[in-house]
């Protein structure tokens, strides 16, 4: 049973966390599962409730991890010059060249956090607006506005890479 749940939910959970915290997504996902397993025996609800609970826990673990990083910031031992930083192609170009999951996640990471969370919870987790509003502690209207703004921002990012066009008109 647990394997079924894990196979079903863990990819979406990992992707969601990779948008929020690309560096610590795997760790937060593991902590999320630990937290969920402790309360799994007492959980009651349908599939939507299960997914809402899982992603709510994941978001809380993400907030805990972010809080921990703020209290204990990680500083590199050696400064790396900007010339030595490995460069990658533009995220939008990557998304167009290879619409892969990693590229899409990297593209969504450029969005504001709330907009990215809303889009991921809506698209990846499959939750509706009301549930997302409950998870994020806001209203359904704000969730809808954030989703639209995020999609517009995403479209702008893709367009900025010369990918998109407006009815055939190149910007």
């Amino acid at each position, binding site marked *: 049973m*647990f*394997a079924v749940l*894990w*196979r079903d939910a*863990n*990819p979406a959970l*990992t*992707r969601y966390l990779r948008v929020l915290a690309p560096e610590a997504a*795997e*760790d937060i996902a*593991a*902590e999320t*599962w*630990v*937290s969920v*397993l*402790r309360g799994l025996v007492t959980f009651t609800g349908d599939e939507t409730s299960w997914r809402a609970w899982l992603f709510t826990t994941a978001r809380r673990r993400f907030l*805990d*991890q972010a809080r*921990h990083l703020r209290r204990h910031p990680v500083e590199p031992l050696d400064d790396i010059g900007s010339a030595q930083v490995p460069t990658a192609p533009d995220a939008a170009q990557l*998304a*167009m060249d290879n*619409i*892969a*999951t990693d*590229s*899409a*996640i990297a*593209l*969504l990471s450029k969005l504001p956090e709330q907009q990215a969370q809303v*889009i*991921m919870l*809506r*698209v*990846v987790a499959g939750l509706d607006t009301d549930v997302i509003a409950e998870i994020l502690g806001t209203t359904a209207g704000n969730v809808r506005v954030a*989703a*639209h703004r995020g*999609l*517009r921002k*995403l*479209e702008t990012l*893709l*367009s900025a890479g010369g*990918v*998109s*066009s*407006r*009815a*055939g*008109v190149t910007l």
Partner: protein
Amino acid sequence: MSENGVPNDDMPDSQQPPSWGPAYHDRDLDALLSGDAGNIPVVLRPVESTLAALRAAPSRRELSEEAAARAAFRAIVQRRVPWAPPAEQGIVTADTLILPPAIGPAERLLTPADRRTPRHRRRRGGGGWGGHRSVIALTSVAAAAVIVIAVAVTGGLPGSVGQTFGGHPTGAAASSAGTGRTQNSLEGTGVSHPTPPAAVSSAGSAPASVSPSAATSPTTFCRELFEPLGRQNRTMWGALLRQLTQLAGGRDKIRSYCFRYLSSDFAQAPGSYPAFPFGGYPGGPGDRGNNGAPNPGSGHSGGNQSAGDPHPGTGEPAPSTGPGASAADTHPSTDTHPQY
């Protein structure tokens, strides 16, 4: 024609080029979010492709840690360790230090010590052994108070307790006479005739509340009542008098009541028995008799001394008590307590 010579319907301003207006609407965005991308504008095709990539099937890499997750699941369910290191991944060597994940305080596995209520929230004296201890302490204090009051009222400790702490001979006699089990083991309880066992006495009509030593027999009461006043204080004597008054059915019946029990004593040593305290009995009031004679441990001054009992103080019954033994042995009321 207008004033510029251009017809009004030649360049209608209601028609805008496609790039001027919004290329998509909110309903298109909602369709993107819901996955219904059938009629979305072309401009949103890249976005639709990006979202489709997010919904793609899980890759092999994303499912590679299933074994570790299962191991963690088993460990957590069995409550052995809070988190199992991902040994199945093959990346953990003996030199690798595995630290548990930073779990929040609310997510830690609670130990029994953690489950206890904080000290400042515990109820004082509520339940558990704390309540039992307080009850036991109160009971002990109450029992001690009762003992002190009893000693104050009676003027001495009853029975063997009185002998131990106060050296009162009559108390020892009363205790030994009432309990046949300890009768042979006590010294100086020179009872010349068999005394009824405690069972017989307790089966009688005398209520348990009559005396503090309910196991004692009427014979003992009568002997103690006729004990020389120099050996007992008036408080104890008054208590005995009240007890015998209840047993005999009245104060004026005490003499006849005790006479039945003590007739053998009078028969064997008629002149040596102490005076009846409130007069009218042979010897008369104030007759102290030989109350000044040392009588260590004996219930009375007669009996063993005059009979030359070879086992002084053992309380052995009749065979060696001399001439009064027959009367004592045949005393009917020692075995059957009179019903009053």
